[in-house]
């Protein structure tokens, strides 16, 4: 055996060892890889190692080599044109839109790689979506639920669009986890928890992990490529790693736009083996967004403008790399901080910064399943408590003033509800008026350094019409006497407003049913009141002539022929205890 041959043999032996070690390292983290990983393993093992050998080494270690799917970089068009779509699922407490269609049967398993298919063979099509729409739950979730299903129903018109949506949603759930450093096996388990078939979960996790590795490699190789392309004039004077690296891309008319604060910063805790906080915000038209994390709330009021120097003195910057989502919002995930923290969004433009919204982040889980039921001007809220909560803070204010940055919150009210009181009374009730209200509920937990509040759960309480009462009286005076003599059945209907309102057209209905009429179709119209503005305390009266024989019921209803918008402005109801039966 010559020296060359010996050397060649030693090289081969070393290559084989490197290949084996490399395959073992891959197997530690992955149960499935793509061809890119095989190529890298070949490169690590040495020039003499072929792809087939690398593939064999991996398979001996129990690692499957598969053709990885191409991952979408932007949402399917069917949901891309609905910016609010991405917000709906978190509000409904769901991860995938198909959960709303298939319900618990999805838990038996599904596949997405060759089109969405449930383990029981069912596919997603218009028929099952329509069926799900009919079974949409009533209550607070109804609107969001119906909205998701209607977007899906629209998408069903395009071939393959529903499959693309399902695929996109699964991928979008895994990508943030990859960015947080989840191992490929952890990604696989997350996908399996969604009820994705394990084989497909392994393939998708491999694809997401490989995509993430490629992005990281590209970022390291060419960091400037991912930097925002904003002019230097708008960069902060002090280097700030907290500046969001993905500002709004195209419509950045920087020089012309004023400094705008971020008013919709929200945080959401994603519970898993490693708890993650997801921040989301709409990028302002100009400037760069810097996130500052501190132990206390921002000393400035939302909407105020401060200098960069002031900003640097508050908390520490977060290294955020926002990713625009299908709803055009930036999102960023970070590990849940061990102690209570506040994150404030700062819009930096030149040497100034606009103070945006502050969110509080705590380890405690927020209340879940916040739902609402309205009883006139009284609103009852119910929710599911997190385990450790001892009370809840409930704040509400008319929706019209929410988001007015810098303005003092008008009409904002807040109450604390102890858990015991909530359990005893079956919820939290408060008189909130008739207008639409924006309600936020924070769970209060007993922390090591006193009481802490969790992230808020928020809900919008739909408004209800301004109450307008009516009552029915006898016709008195000479007219009444004449009616009595002529045996005519006449009554005076009086409508009274409790506050300023625009009364729509009203019809007075006479019904001969045994019970009171419940709608305008339950009898015949015997009178009308035309639409007009009413002031509180003012009343309108109309005398109606009833049929020849009694008894019959009288009731007023808003004219059903009017548009719904006009009808909903008032709630027409009889005055309590009003007599409505006419003999």
């Amino acid at each position, binding site marked *: 055996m010559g020296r060359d041959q010996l050397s060649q043999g030693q090289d081969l032996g070393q290559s084989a060892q490197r290949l084996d070690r490399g395959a073992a390292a891959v197997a530690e983290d992955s149960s499935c890889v793509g061809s890119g990983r095989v190529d890298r393993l070949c490169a690590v093992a040495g020039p003499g190692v072929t792809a087939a050998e690398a593939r064999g080494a991996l398979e001996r270690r129990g690692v499957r080599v598969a053709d990885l799917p191409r991952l979408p970089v932007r949402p399917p068009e069917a949901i891309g044109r609905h910016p609010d779509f991405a917000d709906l699922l978190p509000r409904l407490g769901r991860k995938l839109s198909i959960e709303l269609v298939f319900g618990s049967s999805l838990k038996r398993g599904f596949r997405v790689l060759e089109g969405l298919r449930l383990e029981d063979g069912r596919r997603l099509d218009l028929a099952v979506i329509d069926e799900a729409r009919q079974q949409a739950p*009533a209550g607070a979730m109804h609107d969001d639920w119906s909205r998701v299903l209607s977007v899906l129903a629209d998408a069903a018109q395009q071939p393959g669009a529903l499959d693309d949506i399902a695929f996109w949603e699964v991928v979008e759930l895994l990508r943030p986890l990859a960015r947080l450093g989840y191992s490929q096996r952890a990604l696989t388990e997350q996908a399996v928890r969604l009820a994705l078939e394990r084989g497909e979960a392994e393939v998708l996790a491999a694809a997401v992990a490989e995509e993430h590795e490629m992005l990281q490699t590209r970022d390291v190789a060419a960091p400037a490529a991912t930097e925002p392309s904003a002019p230097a004039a708008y960069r902060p004077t002090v280097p700030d790693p907290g500046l969001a690296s993905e500002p709004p891309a195209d419509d950045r008319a920087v020089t012309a736009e004023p400094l705008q604060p971020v008013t919709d910063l929200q945080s959401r805790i994603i519970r898993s083996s490693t708890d993650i906080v997801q921040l989301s915000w709409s990028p302002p038209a100009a400037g760069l967004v810097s996130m500052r994390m501190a132990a206390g709330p921002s000393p400035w009021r939302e909407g105020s403008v401060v200098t960069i120097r002031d900003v640097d003195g508050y908390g520490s910057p977060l290294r955020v790399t926002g990713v625009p989502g299908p709803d055009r919002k930036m999102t960023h995930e970070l590990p849940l901080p061990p102690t209570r923290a506040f994150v404030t969004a700062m819009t930096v433009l030149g040497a100034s910064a606009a103070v945006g919204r502050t969110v509080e982040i705590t380890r405690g889980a927020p209340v879940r399943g916040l739902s609402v039921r309205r009883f006139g001007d009284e609103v009852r809220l119910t929710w599911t408590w997190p385990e450790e909560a001892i009370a809840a803070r409930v704040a509400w204010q008319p929706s019209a003033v929410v988001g007015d940055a810098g303005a003092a919150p008008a009409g904002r009210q807040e109450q604390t509800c102890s858990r015991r009181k909530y359990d005893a009374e079956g919820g939290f009730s408060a008189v909130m008026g008739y207008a639409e209200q924006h309600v936020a509920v924070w769970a209060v937990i007993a922390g090591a350094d006193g009481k802490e509040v969790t992230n808020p759960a928020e809900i919008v309480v739909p408004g209800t019409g301004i109450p307008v009462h009516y009552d029915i009286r006898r016709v008195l005076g000479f007219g009444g006497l004449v009616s009595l003599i002529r045996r005519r059945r006449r009554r005076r209907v009086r409508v009274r407003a409790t506050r300023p309102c625009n009364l729509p057209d009203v019809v007075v209905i006479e019904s001969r049913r045994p*019970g009171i009429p419940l709608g305008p179709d339950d009898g015949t119209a015997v009178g009308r009141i035309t639409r007009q503005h009413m002031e509180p305390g003012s009343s309108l009266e109309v005398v109606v002539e009833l049929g020849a024989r009694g008894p019959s019921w009288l009731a007023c209803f808003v004219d059903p022929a009017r548009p719904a918008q006009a009808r909903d402005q008032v709630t027409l109801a009889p005055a309590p205890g009003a007599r409505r039966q006419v003999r």
Partner: protein
Amino acid sequence: MIALPFLPRHRLACPYCYETFPEWQIEFRCSGRPGPGGQRCEPGPDPQQQNHFGSTGDQLHTFRDIRHRRRSTCPDSKARTHTRVCPRCHSTFPVHFGRVNSQLIALVGARDSGKTVFMTVLMHEFEFRLGERLGASISGADDTTRSTFRRDYEQRLYEGHSLPDPTFPVAADRRGYRPPMVFRFKRRARSLLPGRTRQTLLSFFDTAGEDLTTTASTELNGRYLEAANAIILILDPLQMPGGRQRAAKEALHQDPRPEDDPYSVIQRITEMLQAGHRDRKIRKPLAVVFTKLDALWHEFPEGTPLKRPGPNGPGSDELDGQDVHRHVQALLHDWDGRQIDEYLRQNYSCYRYFGASALGAIPTPDRRLSGVPSPHRIGDPLVWLLAKEHIVRTVRGS
């Protein structure tokens, strides 16, 4: 004292077995303590209690003492006792029984109409909100009610978020028998003397839905209904064709059974009440409660009485009650229940409709709730019945 219709005033009704008897027949149960001579009585089987409630274990003996009403001395051991028991079923009477007003309230309805949930939530509401509103307190009047209500009903529903199991039929299995629950309703009396209170014992007999479908238990239930001062009839609108059509789909877990049809239930109850009496209207107050309104909530337009906040005055709000009565009456016609309205009109001289939701949400098919019950207008029927007996005030508008 109990005021039972058609009976002399000195007759009392046991709040557990609903049998009537004159006061002098009340018996005492030996305390089991040693008497002055060191003798003590030992427990033994109690055939009368076994006969009524199945096996109840060994008990100390009972004896009658017509000379004493509040306390007595055991003729065997000479030990003093103040434990008074029913001469018919040997149940221990609550303290003050016979000297305070008693109201026996029968809670009837078809199977799965929600009677037990209704009663549990009603008592819970009394303890917290209704009691405060009426200036009253309500508490279990005996150990069984105190322990059973907490353990078997309240904790299960409010902490376990789980609905109770179907109630056992009284005649089918004695061991599954659930005795009536007796509560003490105590409120400040309107008196010139400060601190005066007025007590009423409220006995609720929760019938099993099956009791109203078989003739085997008709006699027993007939006795309960006969002795009851008032009746709360729970009807499930989801058992009615019109109600089912309008209800939220997730509330329709099972198909209705013909024997649970509300009209059939009302007919059976009415026949039980009329048996042995002249052909005339029944004068017992009847509160007809349509439950599970959460399943129909989306059907009610804004401004209707059922969507108003419940009354919060210190009594039964007559105006609000009439509004709800008329509205539910109209809904009844919408739910294809016209014959029910007509039947009640012909057979009862004092009845009123109520609409309520005990849970405030639709439970899951496996009979679980996502949170605590969030009831709506659950107290209205009982407050109306108490007002009928002048135990609480009637107010007009609150």
